[in-house]
C-alpha cells in the first residue's frame, strides 16, 4: 500500500494493529469509506441556463460562505423538489459544473482595433467610455426624428441590439428599457431564431 494514500482512506482498526512492523500495513483497508464530496459544501438553488424546461439545480460550492472563502463550484445536480425536473438533469445540465468552472472563460475586457490582427487589453473604464461615446456619436449622426411623410418616428436605425437566450427577464427589461429610450428599433433576440 502506498502510505501517501492513507490520507484519503479511512482505515478500519483491523488493518491498523498489524501495521508498522515492515513499515507498511499487512492488512489492507477493507471498508474504504468513499467520502461524499458534497457533504459539507454550501448549497445554492438555481435554474439551469440551457433549455426552456427550466430545470431546478443545486450548485454546491466549497466553503460555508465565510468571508475568507472564495466559493468555487464542486458539483451541480438537479433539485429534487423542482416539479418539472424532480432532480433530473440532461447531459448538458449534468456538466454545468464545467460550464461554471472552465478555463476558457473570458476574464478581462478586450478590444480589437480597426485593421487589428490581435486582441488588445483595455480597462473597463476605457471600454465603457469608448462604447458610450460611439453610441452617442452614431445616434447623433443618424437619429431619425420624422419620416418622409412628416410623422414623428424618433427612431435610431443604426444601432442594433441582439440579445441572448440566457439573459434574465430583469436584464431583458433593462435592455429593452434603455435601448428603446435611445430609439433603437433593430432590437432582436435569440427568441426569433
Amino acid at each position, binding site marked *: 500500500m502506498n502510505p501517501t494514500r492513507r490520507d484519503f482512506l479511512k482505515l478500519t482498526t483491523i488493518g491498523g494493529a498489524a501495521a508498522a512492523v515492515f513499515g507498511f500495513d499487512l492488512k489492507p483497508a477493507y471498508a474504504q469509506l468513499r467520502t461524499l464530496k458534497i457533504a459539507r459544501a454550501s448549497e*445554492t*438553488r*438555481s*435554474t439551469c*441556463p440551457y*433549455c*426552456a*424546461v*427550466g430545470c431546478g439545480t443545486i450548485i454546491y*460550492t466549497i466553503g460555508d460562505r465565510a468571508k475568507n472563502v*472564495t466559493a468555487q*463550484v464542486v458539483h451541480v445536480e438537479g433539485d429534487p423538489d*423542482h*416539479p*418539472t425536473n424532480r432532480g433530473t438533469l*440532461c447531459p448538458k*445540465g449534468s456538466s454545468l459544473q*464545467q*460550464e*461554471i468552472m472552465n478555463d*476558457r*472563460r473570458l476574464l478581462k*475586457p478586450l478590444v*480589437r482595433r*480597426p*485593421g487589428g*490582427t490581435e486582441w488588445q487589453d483595455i480597462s*473597463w473604464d476605457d*471600454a*465603457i467610455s469608448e*462604447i458610450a461615446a460611439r*453610441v*452617442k456619436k452614431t445616434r447623433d449622426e443618424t437619429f431619425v426624428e420624422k*419620416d418622409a*411623410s412628416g*410623422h*414623428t*418616428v424618433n427612431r435610431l*436605425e443604426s*444601432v442594433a441590439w441582439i440579445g441572448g*437566450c*440566457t439573459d*434574465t*427577464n*430583469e436584464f431583458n*427589461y*433593462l*435592455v*429593452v*428599457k434603455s435601448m*428603446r*429610450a435611445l430609439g433603437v*428599433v*433593430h432590437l*432582436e*433576440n*435569440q*427568441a*426569433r*431564431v
Partner: protein
Amino acid sequence: MTNGWVDMKNTDMMLIMGGNPAENHPCGFKWPVEAKRTRNAKIISVDPRFTRTSAVADLFCQIRAGTDIAFLGGVVHYAMENNRIAKDYLVNYTNAAFLVKSDFKLPADTDGVFSGFDAKTQSYDKSTWNYAGTGGGRGSDAAHPPSGSAPPAPRLPEKVEFDLSLQNPNCVFQLLKKHYSRYTPEMVERITGIPKEQFLKAADLYTSIRKDGDMKKAGTIIYAVGWTQHSFGTQIIRTAAILQLLLGNVGRAGGGVNALRGHSNIQGATDMAGIFDNLPGYLKVPTPADTSFDSWMKRITPTPSKPAPWDSFNYWSNTPKFAVSYLKALYGDAAAKQNEWAFDYLPKVDRNYSWVQLWDNMYNGIVKGMFAFGMNGVAIGPDSKKNIDALKKADWLVVGEIYPDETSEFWKSPGISTDEMKQIQTTVYRLPCAGFAEKDGSFTNSARWLLWKNTALPMPGDCRTDQGIVAQIFLKIRELYKKDGGKFPDPVLNLTWNYSVPSNPPLAEVLKEINGKALADLEDPATKQQVKAGQQVPGFAWLKDDGTTSCGNWIYSGSFTEAGNQTARRDPSDPSNLGIHPGWGWSWPANRRVMYNRASCDVDGKPWDPTRKQVWWNESTQKWTGNDVVDFKIDSKPKDHMGPFIMNPEGVGRIFGPLAAFADGPLPEHYEPIESPIDNPLHPEQTHNPVVKRFKTPDDKYGTPKDGYTVVCTTYRLTELYHYWTKNNPMNVQLIPEPFVEISAEMAQEMGLTGGEKVKVSSIRGEYIAKAMVTKRIKAMMIDGKKIYQIGIPIHQGYRGIAEDEGKDARTLVNLLTPTVFDPNAYTPEFKGFLVKLEKA
C-alpha cells in the same frame, strides 16, 4: 406552451412533430414518458429522421422536411371524414359556425393563393378575409404595423353571422372541409413521402381519442423549431391549432398546442419584447401613423366581434391600462397625461427590423453598430457568410460573453488572411460577463413559469454582470447627453433609473419595477381591498390608464407583490395531482398554469373528464373555481355563453384567422420550402408561400434542383451539446467530439461512402465538410414520383471551441449553408428543408 411540462403526464395521445423533445428537452420529456407508463398514452413521432423521440414512440412516420401542413391538413381531413371531431366544443368554443364573407376565395379556387393577392407587391388585400356580419369597432387584428400611409384597416364585424348547424357553405367549418378535402391520403403521400397506409395509421391513431364522440380523452401536439423555422412556420402551427380545436383539445389537461421553446429564457425574452415588433407584454409597437397615444390605443385595442347571443370578455380591451402603466414605469413623472404619457419617446416602427433584415441592413450600411450579449449571431445565421460580411462593414461591435465566440472573432474566421484582416475596420469590444451561477434573476421556462435563481459564487477574473455593463454604458451615455446635449436627449435623460446601485441594478428591484406599483392609493370598488401608494400591485387587474399605476410588463404583474418575490416560491405540492404545482415559482398570466382552461369544461361548466378537473362552474357560489387559476371572467354564467378564448375579440378559438391576423392566409395552405425539390403538387404554378421575401445582396442566393441541388437538408440540435456553448466544455465535447452529417445507408451506398468518411455538403451559398454518419434511421423517399434523399446536420460546431480553435482542426459553420428567407408572420428564418448536394471530400 398553452399547457406545461408536467401537464403532459395527463395526456392520452401525443403527436410530436417539428420537434424532438427527447433530444432537446430531455427533462421535460419525462412527462410524455410518464403518460406512456401510467396512462398507456401513445406517442406518434413524425420527423425527417428517426430520432431519439422516435426511439420511444409507438409510431414513426418519416416526413420530408417542410411538408408538415400537408400532413396535418391530411389529419384534419381524416378527422372530418370520419367524424372524429368534438362537435360541441367546435360549435361553441371555435369560430367554426361563423360565416365568412362570400367573396372570400380559397387557394383551390384562385390558383394557389387566397383572394386578394397582389402579385406585384407580393402581399394580400385582406378585406375579404373577414366574417360576414354587421357593425363593429375598428380593425383590431393588426399583428403587423400597417404602413404609414395605408387606408384605415378593415374591421371585424361586431355582430357576426353564424350557423350552429355548420351547414352553411360559407361557414368556417364548411370552408375548412372544402379546403382540406384536397389533402387526401394520396396527396399527403405525394407531398410528404409518407406512404398512404402509414399516414392512415397515424391519422387513425391520433384521432382515435374522439372515437364515437367521446370527450374524455385528451391529445396534445408538441412541437419546436422544426415547425417555426420554415417560410410558412406560423401556418404549420396554425394547422396544429385547427386540428386541436377540431378535436377539442385546447385548454384541457393533457391537451393543447405546446411549443417547446428552445432556450432557458426564450419565452421570457419574447414576453419582455426583446424583439422589434412588440413592447413588453405583447403590446404592439406604435407606428408613425399612430400620431397620438390615443390613436395608437384605438388601433391596438380590439372590440368584441361575435354572434349576437354570445358574450366575449375581450381581455385586450384593457390595453390602454397596460400601455399607460408601462410608460409610467419607463418615464415616471416625465410621462403624464399632458404629454400623452411620453408617447413621443417611443420609437415608431413601420417596417421589418427582424433578425434576417437586421443583418441585411447592416450589410447595406444602415446598421453601423451592434451590441451582441450572449448572442452568437454569426454562428446562428442563416447564411453565416452574409453575417460575417455584414460585420466587416460595421463601425463597431460590442460583445458580452463568457467564452470566446464566433461573433466576437468574426474578423479571424477561417479563410480570412492577415492582409484581409487588416482591411476590416470594425472596432470590436469583448466584455467578460457573469455566468448564470454568478448572478441572480428569473428565467421564464417554456411553461411560462418564472423561476428565480440565486447567486452561487463570485465571478471569475475581471468579469462584470451583464446588467452592470448595460447600466454603466447607459449611464455614461446619459452623462454625455447631459453634458454635451445631442439629438432628442429627452427619453435618455428622463428614463427612470431609481435603483439602489444604479451602476449595477439589483435584479430583484428590477423585477419589482416589472411587477408594477401603485402611484396613488387604489381601491377595488367590489372588494374594498386597498393598495397604498408606493405598494406593489397584486396583479394586472389593478393597473389603471390614468397614470396611477406603473408596470414594466403587465403579464408579469403579480410576480413580485407585497407578499414578496413570487418567482422564488418553493412549495412543490400539487393537491390536484394534475401537475399544476400552484406554489412553485410563478406562472404568467396571474399564476395560471393551463391557458384557456375554461375550455376544459362543457358548455354547462362541467369538466369534460371528471377525473381531470381543472376548473368548473360552482352553482352554489355562482363562480368559476378550480385547481388552477381560472382563465375566464370569474362570474360569467355558463348560460351567458362567454367564449373561453378571452384574448380573442371573438371569445372563441380561431379556425379561420380573419383579417390581418396572418400575412399569408386565414387558413393554412401547403407551400413548398423556398428551396424545394419539386413543384407544389397542389398547385405547381404557386409552389412557394407567395408573400415570402427574398433578399438581394450578392450573399443571398437560392438554389434549385436544376442547379444540381437535389438533396433535402435539415439542421438540428443534439442533446449532448447546447447550441454553440458547450463546445467549450470537455465533458460534452467528449460525447460528440466531431461534427457529422447524417446520411441514409442507401444514399451512402450510391455514393460509395462508408461511415466516418468525410463528405462535403454544398448549398448554393456555401459548403460544409464533416464526417458521414451512415444510418438506417433516414431512408430515401418517394416524393411526387421522384426519389429524394434527405440528410441532417447538427449545428453545434464552429471555429471557436475546445476542438476548433485556431491551430486545431478549425471547422466551418453549418449555417453557411442556410438560406436568408423567413416566415412572413414570425420572421423566423428557414433553417429546415433547404437544398444541397453531396460529394465525397
